[in-house]
C-alpha cells in the first residue's frame, strides 16, 4: 500500500547519500547545522489569503501562521509521512475523549503567553473557536460549526456575546468541547488555526486579519498585504513550552506575489540576502533542467512529500458528462504523463491512479483506467464514446487558473481529449478567484483543473468533503463534480460511525474504488514539491501538511 511512498523516500535518501559522496557540505536537507540568529527570507509567488485564525484555511497561510500562533495540537515537525502525526502544542496532550468521543478535554501547558506577556488561558482558546462562527469571518474550516453542540444556531461572539455553551472552561487551564456526534479525530482537527487563542480585548474583528496577536515565536512587525510580511521575535514565547517550533532566525521576511520565474532565478543565483532565502512554492518546469544538471543547485533542492492529489473534475450534472460512459472515456483519454510534465516532470510527483494518495491511511492500490506510462488509452476511450453514441465527439469548457501553469495544464487536457474528438475550450480564471468560481455551482463549467489535500493526514476529510452530495451548496461548494450517489452517502454515514480509525480507513479505501468507477474526477498526480533554498539555509525539509513546502517553524540559517 505504501510502496510508492517508500520508493519516494528511497529516492530522497539516495539523493542525500549521493551529495554526501560528492563531499558537498551545502546540504539543505540535513539538520543540526542551523544556528540561532539571522534573517530568513521567504520568496512567495503566491499571496497569503488570510492570517486571521478563524479564516485561515489555505495550507501556505497555515504554514506561515504556525510561526505566529499556536493551536491546541499541531502536526509533527518531521519530514515525510511522519509529519502527518498530530502532537500536542498549547495543550499537554492531543486531547482526551470521553462519552464515546463526544466530549473532548484539553489541558493547557504552564507558562504559555501572548506577545504582551499575558498568560494564555482556556477562555482565549474558547473565544478563538467562537470567532470562527461569526458570519463576518468566513472561509475558515467548517468543523467547529459542524460538530459542536448548538453550533448550527450560534452566530459568533459579536452577535451572541454570551458565548457557546458547548465549549466549557472550568478553569484557566482546562477546555472541554461537547460534540453533537462521536468524532474520533477531533484531536487532529484541533491542529487547525481556528483552535488558536485570541485575546478578546485585542480582537479587532475583520481587522484582526492584518494583525493577529502572537502566541508563537514571532510577532508581526510590519504587514503590507499582497506585498510583504515582516516577523520579529516574540520575546514572551518560551521555547521550553514548545517542542515543535525552533524559532531559529531573529527575523522572517516574506515577499509576496513575486513572479515565479523571478523567484527561481533569484534562488538559482543565491546571491546576497537570497542566500538566506527559501522559495515558498516548487520550482517551475523551466528551472528543473538547470537544477538537475548542476550538483551545487541539486544540493539545495528539497523534495517534499504531500498528501495532495491533483485531478480533473468532471461536472456530473452537465450533458454529456452526466453519462458515466463519457466520463470513463475521458478518464481513458487523459494524458496524465503530459500533465505531469507540464508541472515539472517526475520531480513534481507520481502519476496518480487513485484519489487517496499513497501514504495516506486508506490508500488502496487501484487503477481502473490503465494505460502505458499514463499516456492514455485512445482506443478504449473511443470505444466508450461510441457506446455512448458520441463517436463524432463533442465540445466542453474547461475551467483553469489563468496562470502560466494553469494554461499549460489546460492545453495538455485540450491536446489529450482532442485525440478522441472532444473539443476543449479553456476558460482561464484569475487565480485569486479560481476556487470560489468553481465552488459556485452556477459558474462551474464542464471540467476543472482541481485537487484536494485533506485537513489532516487521514481519509476522513477527503472523500466525504468532496463527494457527499448532501454538502453541495450553490456557493462555497467543495463537491465540484456535483457527484450524487445515495449509496455512497449512506456508506459515508456508516464509516463515520465506525469507532476504529483503521477499520474506517480501510472502508474509505474500498469506497474510493466504488467512487472511481463513477469517475466524478480523474486523478492525475500525487504531488511532490521540489523547493529551492538558498546556500545558507539549514534544516529545511518539505512537510506533508503544507503540500511538501518547507516547514517554516523549524528552518534556520547556518553561520
Amino acid at each position, binding site marked *: 500500500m505504501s510502496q510508492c511512498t517508500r520508493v519516494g523516500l528511497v529516492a530522497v535518501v539516495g539523493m542525500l547519500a549521493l551529495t554526501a559522496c560528492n563531499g558537498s557540505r551545502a546540504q539543505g536537507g540535513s539538520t543540526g547545522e542551523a544556528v540561532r540568529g539571522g534573517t530568513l527570507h521567504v520568496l512567495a509567488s503566491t499571496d497569503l489569503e488570510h492570517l486571521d485564525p478563524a479564516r485561515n484555511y489555505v495550507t501556505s497561510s497555515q504554514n506561515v501562521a504556525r510561526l505566529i500562533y499556536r493551536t491546541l495540537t499541531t502536526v509533527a515537525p518531521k519530514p515525510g509521512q511522519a509529519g502527518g502525526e498530530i502532537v500536542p502544542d498549547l495543550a499537554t496532550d492531543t486531547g482526551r475523549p470521553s462519552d464515546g468521543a463526544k466530549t473532548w478535554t484539553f489541558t493547557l501547558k504552564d507558562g504559555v503567553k501572548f506577545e504582551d506577556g499575558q498568560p494564555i488561558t482556556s477562555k482565549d482558546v474558547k473565544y478563538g473557536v467562537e470567532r470562527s462562527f461569526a458570519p463576518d469571518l468566513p472561509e475558515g474550516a467548517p468543523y467547529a460549526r459542524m460538530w459542536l453542540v448548538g453550533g448550527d444556531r450560534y452566530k459568533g461572539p459579536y452577535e451572541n456575546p454570551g458565548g457557546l455553551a458547548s465549549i466549557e472552561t472550568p478553569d484557566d487551564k482546562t477546555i472541554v468541547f461537547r460534540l453533537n456526534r462521536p468524532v474520533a479525530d477531533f484531536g487532529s482537527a484541533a491542529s487547525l488555526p481556528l483552535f488558536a487563542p485570541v485575546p478578546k480585548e485585542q480582537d479587532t474583528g475583520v481587522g484582526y486579519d492584518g494583525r493577529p496577536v502572537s502566541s508563537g515565536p514571532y510577532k508581526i512587525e510590519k504587514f503590507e498585504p499582497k506585498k510583504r510580511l515582516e516577523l520579529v521575535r516574540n520575546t514572551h514565547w518560551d521555547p521550553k513550552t514548545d517542542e515543535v517550533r525552533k524559532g531559529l532566525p531573529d527575523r522572517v521576511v516574506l515577499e509576496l506575489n513575486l513572479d515565479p*520565474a523571478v523567484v527561481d532565478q533569484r534562488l538559482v543565483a543565491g546571491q546576497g540576502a537570497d542566500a538566506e532565502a527559501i522559495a515558498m512554492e516548487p520550482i517551475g518546469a*523551466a528551472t528543473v*533542467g*538547470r537544477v538537475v544538471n548542476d550538483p551545487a543547485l541539486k544540493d539545495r533542492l528539497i523534495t517534499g512529500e504531500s498528501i495532495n492529489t491533483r485531478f480533473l473534475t468532471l461536472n456530473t450534472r452537465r450533458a454529456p458528462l452526466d453519462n458515466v460512459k463519457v466520463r470513463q472515456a475521458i478518464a481513458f483519454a487523459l494524458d496524465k504523463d503530459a500533465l505531469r*510534465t507540464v508541472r515539472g516532470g517526475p520531480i513534481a510527483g507520481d502519476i496518480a491512479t487513485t484519489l487517496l494518495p499513497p501514504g495516506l491511511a486508506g490508500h488502496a492500490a487501484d487503477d481502473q483506467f490503465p494505460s502505458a506510462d499514463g499516456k492514455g488509452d485512445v482506443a478504449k476511450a473511443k470505444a466508450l464514446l461510441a457506446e455512448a453514441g458520441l463517436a463524432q465527439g463533442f465540445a466542453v469548457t474547461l475551467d483553469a487558473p489563468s496562470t502560466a501553469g494553469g494554461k499549460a495544464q489546460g492545453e495538455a487536457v485540450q491536446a489529450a481529449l482532442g485525440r478522441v474528438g472532444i473539443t476543449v475550450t479553456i476558460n482561464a480564471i484569475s487565480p485569486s478567484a479560481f476556487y470560489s468560481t468553481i465552488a459556485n455551482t452556477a459558474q462551474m463549467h464542464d471540467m476543472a483543473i482541481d485537487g484536494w489535500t485533506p485537513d489532516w493526514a487521514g481519509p476522513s476529510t477527503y472523500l466525504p468533503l468532496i463527494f457527499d452530495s448532501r454538502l453541495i451548496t450553490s456557493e462555497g461548494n467543495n463537491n465540484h463534480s456535483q457527484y450524487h450517489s445515495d449509496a455512497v452517502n449512506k456508506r459515508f454515514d456508516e464509516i463515520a460511525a465506525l469507532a476504529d480509525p483503521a477499520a474506517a480507513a480501510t472502508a474509505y479505501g474500498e469506497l474510493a474504488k466504488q467512487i472511481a468507477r463513477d469517475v466524478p474526477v480523474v486523478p492525475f498526480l500525487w504531488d511532490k514539491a521540489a523547493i529551492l533554498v538558498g546556500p545558507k539555509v539549514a534544516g529545511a525539509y518539505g512537510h506533508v501538511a503544507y503540500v511538501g513546502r518547507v516547514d517554516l517553524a523549524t528552518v534556520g540559517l547556518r553561520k
Partner: protein
Amino acid sequence: MTVLPITRPADVPPLRRLLRQPSAAVALVVVVLLVLMAVFAPLLVWTSPTEFDSAAVDPALGGLPRGAFGGISAEHPLGVEPVSGRDVLARIVYGARVSLLIAVLATLVSVVVGTVLGLVAGFFGGVVDAVVGRLMDLLMSFPSLIFMIALISALPEANREALLVLVLGGFGWPYVGRIVRGQAMVLARGEFVAAARALGAPRRALLLREVLPNLTTPVLVVATMSIPGYIATEAGLSFLGVGVRPPTPSWGQMIASAVPWYAADPAYFLIPGGFLFVTVLAFNVLGDAVRDVLDPRSVRR
C-alpha cells in the same frame, strides 16, 4: 501648408522603381515568402501545431527538449516547445497566419473607417470636421495599449481574433483619418475640384471621383506602414495574455511562454523572436520604400 500636386512620374512603373532599391527588394521577397508561408501553411507542415510529442522532451529535466538547440531534428526542423513537445515550425507557420491575418484585417478596418471619416471631415469641414476631429484626438490621446487590455479582458469571450481586429482597427483609424483629412482639405480647395463643382457635379461625385482617387497614395503608404505596428501590437497583446487564446498559436504567446526558458532553452526564445523581428523589419522597410516611390516629396538624397 504648401500645396503640391500629387502626381506619379509615368516613365518608370512603381514596382520597378521599388525593386531598384536592394533593401526594398529583399523586404518584398521576405514579405511575399511570409504571406505564402501563411497561406499555404497546411502544405508546408504536416505536424499539427497543437499535437503534443512527449518523446521529444525529457520529463526528468522538466520537459526540456531532447537534443541541441531546442530539439532541432529532421522531424522538428525548428525544434519543439519545451514541456509539450509541440512542433515549433508548425506553430511559427500557423502563428504567421494568425498574426498576418489580424494585422491585415485590422489595417483594412482602420483604412476604411479612417478614409471615410477623414474624407468626410476634410471635405465638408465645419461641424462634421469638429466632431470627427475631436473623436480622433480623443482616441489618439488614449493610453491605447492599456485600454485594449482592459477592453479585451472585459468583453465576452466570443471570437478573440475578430475582437482583436476590431480593437486594433478601432484604435488605429485616427492615424489614417488624420492624414486623409489633411489631404482631403487640400484637395477640396483644388482647382480641379472647383472646376468639377462649377460644372455642376454632385457632391458624391466630387468626393468619389475627384478627391478619393487622389488619396490612394497616402492611404496606401499609411496602410503599409501600419501593418508592422499591428503585428507587433498583436504579439504584445498575446504576450500579455489577452491576445488569441490557446491552443491557437501566436508568436507573441510563444515569446511569452519562452521567457522562463531563456536560460534553459534559448532557441525557443530566439526562433519566434527572430521571426517577429524579421517580419516587422521587412514590413517597415517595404513601407518606407513604398512611400519613397509613391510620394515624391520624400525622395531620399
